[in-house]
């Protein structure tokens, strides 16, 4: 067994470490990840607004208060959640500029302007003229907000990365207007970026004009049809999530922060778009278009509490008791490192099988129950919020979420008990051997 573990560790180190290093070092993935993370304050704010604007049972017991809350708070949504793609541009451009070593202010300027360059300033919609409805009317002098919210995020990411790439390429080629050294840097800086910004924007103008010749019409539309739609389909698939969880567990088993190299690096960008689309629909009182979104984390974050609880209840060895004590309270706030590194779970052969399979199973069960009870998490929650609160608040007080969380916990607990008992016996034997020596 010892030999097998050594081989496994070598094998995984050889193939997984370079992979996590690659994911981690890629400037584009880092910029996108940081860009999405930077939207967190906006998402949490809109989530708090939703809780008040859609306060449970308020519309039955106090309809006047309910209407007042809705009317007062609703303008916040289009200005925050409705502009999500713009916040993504700011965050991603800021991060990517830093990584490409260019001035982040000009990075944001060039990314935002390039995005606007490919955005049509007109829309075809239904308008009312003198009390009469007119279909398919062309309205000019407006920016359609549909392009600026959740569905515009992929366009925003692509344009941001490409525009800053072009910009930094030109600047590094030294195609800049140089001022004599006597000119103060604050005056010289805008001149320095004039040519790179101009060329970048002209590139996007060319893209816009070329796209007008195709059946897509606009870049926004082309990206939506070619990329966004298929990606959203894939990102909303439970199989993708279960696969990523499995990989995440392998990483943790090696002592690597698995969640940040799988779920956060790969799934989060797509899952956030899905979540924002659901929030839009929820705000408009329409049925939710997606089931599986980033809000599903409300069920996923507490899976590892089960083995820790089993350890606390059944652990008899000193090691088990000590770790149980240290690990239990953080685990209530979804922090599991004391358990993973303290027990340790890392490279612990006894725990390999349950570690890899129980968590995907818990999450699969949660998904099925969620589809069945329609207790679908909609609002994003801070990940350190304890279990039960996560589900209840995220589903906006659907109390089925309590049952789902409880079932997940119990299934995990029952399946973990035999393995924890085996481990405890091993540790107990080792401790007795040490004391008799």
């Amino acid at each position, binding site marked *: 067994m010892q030999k097998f573990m050594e081989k496994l560790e070598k094998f995984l180190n050889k193939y997984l*470490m370079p992979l*996590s*290093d690659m994911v*981690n*070092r890629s400037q584009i993935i880092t910029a996108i990840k*940081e860009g999405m*993370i930077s939207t967190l304050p906006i998402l949490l704010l809109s989530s708090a607004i939703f809780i008040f604007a859609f306060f449970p049972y308020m519309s039955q017991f106090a309809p006047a208060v309910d209407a007042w809350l809705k009317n007062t708070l609703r303008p916040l949504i289009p200005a925050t959640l409705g502009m999500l793609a713009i916040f993504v541009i700011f965050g991603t451009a800021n991060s990517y500029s*830093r990584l490409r070593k260019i001035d982040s202010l000009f990075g944001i300027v060039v990314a935002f302007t390039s995005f606007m360059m490919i955005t049509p300033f007109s829309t075809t919609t239904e308008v009312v003229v003198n009390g009469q409805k007119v279909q398919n009317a062309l309205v000019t002098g407006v920016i359609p907000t549909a392009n600026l919210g959740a569905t515009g995020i992929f366009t925003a990411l692509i344009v941001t990365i490409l525009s800053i790439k072009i910009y930094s390429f030109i600047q590094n080629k030294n195609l800049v207007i140089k001022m004599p050294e006597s000119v103060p840097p604050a005056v010289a800086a805008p001149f320095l970026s004039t040519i790179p910004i101009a060329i970048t924007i002209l590139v996007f103008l060319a893209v816009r004009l070329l796209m007008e010749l195709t059946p897509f019409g606009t870049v926004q539309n082309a990206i939506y049809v070619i990329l966004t739609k298929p990606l959203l389909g894939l990102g909303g698939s439970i199989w993708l999530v279960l696969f990523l969880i499995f990989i995440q567990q392998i990483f*943790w088993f090696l*002592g*690597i*922060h698995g*969640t*940040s190299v799988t779920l956060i690096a790969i799934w989060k960008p797509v899952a956030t778009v899905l979540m924002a689309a659901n929030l839009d629909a929820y705000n408009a009182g329409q049925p939710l278009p997606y089931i599986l979104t980033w809000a599903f984390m409300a069920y996923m974050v507490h899976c590892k509490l089960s083995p820790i609880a089993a350890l606390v209840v059944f652990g008899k060895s000193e090691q088990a008791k*000590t*770790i149980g004590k*240290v690990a239990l309270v*953080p685990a209530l706030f979804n*922090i*599991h*490192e*004391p*358990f*993973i*590194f*303290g*027990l*340790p779970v*890392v490279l612990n052969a006894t725990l390999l099988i349950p570690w890899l399979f129980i968590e995907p199973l818990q999450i699969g069960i949660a998904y099925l129950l969620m589809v069945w009870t329609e207790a679908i998490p909609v609002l994003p929650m801070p*990940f*350190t919020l304890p279990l039960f609160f996560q589900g209840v608040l995220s589903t906006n007080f659907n109390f089925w979420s309590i049952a789902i969380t409880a079932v997940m916990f119990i299934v995990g607990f029952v399946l973990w008990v035999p393995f924890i008992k085996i481990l405890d016996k091993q540790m107990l034997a080792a401790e007795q051997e040490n004391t008799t020596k």
Partner: protein
Amino acid sequence: MKILLVCAAGMSTSLVVAKMKKSLKPEEADWVIDAIPAESFETEIDNYDVVLLGPQLKFKKNQLEEVAKPKGIPLEVINMADYGTVRGDKILEFARQLYQNK
């Protein structure tokens, strides 16, 4: 001395920080110990004398070292068992040694 702890979100490491602060000797009362997520590493490192990395980020060590080494700031991964059992005293001792040996 100013000690910086880096982990994925700065959450689990904040547990360790609290324990480390408790283990400070009276004459070390002015020491600064902070926990940050890896994303803010580059903007924060200049304010510290020693950097400790959570074991879950050992795969980032090479990358972060490229930043820390030219500045002459020692950077090491925290021992897994000490981190898991939240042994603030041992981790603090580790930081002291790193600082002395630099």
